[in-house]
């Protein structure tokens, strides 16, 4: 493997942050391997996304405007991989990123590593570092036995940095293939907000919240003050207080924000597994002896319903001073 290809996820031309992280990281690995950094962007709005990508350190930006759900993106990545030679393909460890990365890996028979948080390159070979079992172990896997390899990178771990590269835009001709999957409609149910996987600050609520309301009021307020996202424990999701997309834990999402604030969450193993690799953990809980005390950097024992609004106010004040 010599070159690195970042698959760029976007919505009508607006690129997801995890893809900008992939674009930036592609350059870093390509430099270590002595190869080129490519980006692939497909579907409606691809041209617009390509213009944005010029700000990132890429050698070539490959564009395919053809809109074929997932299939089109996989074809585009395959075309670029085949033309640029032995490559590592980076995708975001997101719903779309996983679909594109996994299909490409199956198509070209190469290794794939999920939820990658670090890379090691040696003698032209790439190894991926991944926490497993909720950070209990850190595994390193070498991508071998094929010209290609896929790594799905955990959002929020690698930095996205604007440093313009050559940024040559190359058009990929339409494949002319028929689509096997028909997109019938798309419905927005929530305002476009940062997902819990991508947010650098996550404010999560658990059983201690007592009902659905605090998730859209006091927890949302605090998350907004940080520009972050609202998460939830399994207990809160199972109780129907908040949708499954917010769930952090073994049967939910595994996240690594810079700051995780757990409110009214006891810290059962199921939850711990999903957030243990957060950089800093703050817990607010009425019980000072809750299991979360064992791994939170700070636990404040008190009434969350009184502390969180107060905290929100102070955070807003502190941010206003810096603004």
């Amino acid at each position, binding site marked *: 493997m010599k070159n690195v290809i970042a698959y760029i996820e976007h919505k009508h031309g607006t690129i997801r942050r995890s893809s900008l992280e992939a674009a930036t990281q592609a350059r870093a690995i390509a430099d270590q391997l002595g190869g080129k950094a490519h980006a692939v962007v497909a579907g409606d709005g691809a041209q617009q996304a390509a213009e944005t990508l010029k700000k990132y350190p890429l050698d070539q930006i490959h564009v395919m405007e053809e809109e074929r759900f997932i299939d089109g993106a996989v074809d585009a990545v395959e075309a670029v991989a085949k033309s640029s030679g032995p490559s590592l393909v980076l995708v975001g460890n997101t*719903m779309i990123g*996983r*679909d594109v*990365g*996994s*299909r490409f*890996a*199956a198509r070209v028979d*190469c*290794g*794939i*590593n*999920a*939820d990658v948080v670090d890379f090691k390159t040696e003698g032209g070979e790439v*190894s*991926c570092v991944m926490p*497993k*079992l909720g950070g*209990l*172990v*850190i*595994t*390193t*896997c*070498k*991508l071998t*036995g094929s010209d290609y*390899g896929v790594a*799905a990178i955990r959002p929020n771990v690698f930095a996205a940095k604007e440093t313009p590269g050559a940024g040559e835009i190359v058009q990929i001709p339409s494949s002319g293939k028929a689509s*096997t*999957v*028909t*997109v*019938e409609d*798309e419905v927005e*149910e929530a*305002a476009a907000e940062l*997902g819990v996987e991508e947010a650098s*600050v996550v404010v999560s609520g658990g059983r201690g919240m007592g009902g659905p309301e605090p998730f859209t009021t006091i927890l949302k307020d605090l998350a907004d003050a940080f520009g972050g996202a609202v998460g939830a424990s399994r207990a809160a999701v199972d109780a129907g207080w908040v949708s*499954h*997309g917010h769930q952090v834990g*073994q*049967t939910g999402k595994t996240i690594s924000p*810079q700051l995780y604030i757990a409110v009214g969450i006891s810290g059962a193993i*199921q939850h711990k597994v999903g957030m*243990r690799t957060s950089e800093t*953990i703050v817990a*607010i809980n009425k019980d000072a002896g809750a299991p979360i005390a064992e*791994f939170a*950097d*700070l*636990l*404040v024992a*008190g009434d969350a319903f*009184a*502390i969180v609004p*107060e*905290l929100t106010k*102070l955070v807003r004040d502190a*941010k206003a001073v810096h603004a």
Partner: protein
Amino acid sequence: MKILVTVKLVPDTNADKRIDPATKRLVRTGVETVLNPFDEYAIEAALQLKEKLNDGSTVTIVSMTPASGKEIVRKALAMGADDAVMLSDDAVAGSDLWGTAVALAATIKAQSPDLVVTGTQSTDAISGDLPGMLAEKLGIPGLTYARKLEVDGGRVRVQRETETGYMTVSAPLPAVVSVTKSANEPRYPSLKGIMGAKKKEIKQLAAADIGLTVAVGTDGAKAQLTDLATPPARAKGHVIQAPDAAEGAKAIVQFLKDRKFL
């Protein structure tokens, strides 16, 4: 219609897992093996579809697992599936994602299903990559993250979850569909189901039976484990009692300022 559901055995999700410092392997003693919780939604979705179609459709469980996994597969049968196929062979042990996709796809192909239903991911590997890989290897459409699915006129239509809502996508059968936790509430096996499951057939296949021509398993892995380390344990943090909310909030803000968050 022949519906297949893939299932995996995973260490008990609620158990606190430990790594043996000497062998660097997961301590399995005392950690029970369970049916991957995500797969229960797939089984439930398949059973609901079968019940709704009410046309003699069948649900077959497929699992790549050592022979010891039979009892877990039986739980899926107890929920109401009709029969099961297990791929149990040392040749597939230690497979990476690619090897698993190759071996499982070959097993599935031999069953000629109309629909393959999977969970979104397993609680141990947490990759979420297998449904897409299976679809690609089988050469059929793959519809992932379905919170609702229906079959009508030779097509499967699903509501695919997105970060901000959902999209409706459809494809001709056969297809692979992965279902999310939002799809349903998995049923508990009834006593009648548990008793009945004992009589249901679990077909055990070896790699040779499915015509596997490439090397999978540990030796054939294209993502090879080269190191396994235990990270330093998180230091126990500070605990502050805050009977006064304003004091508690101030303590957090100070902490965040010290760590340059504010």
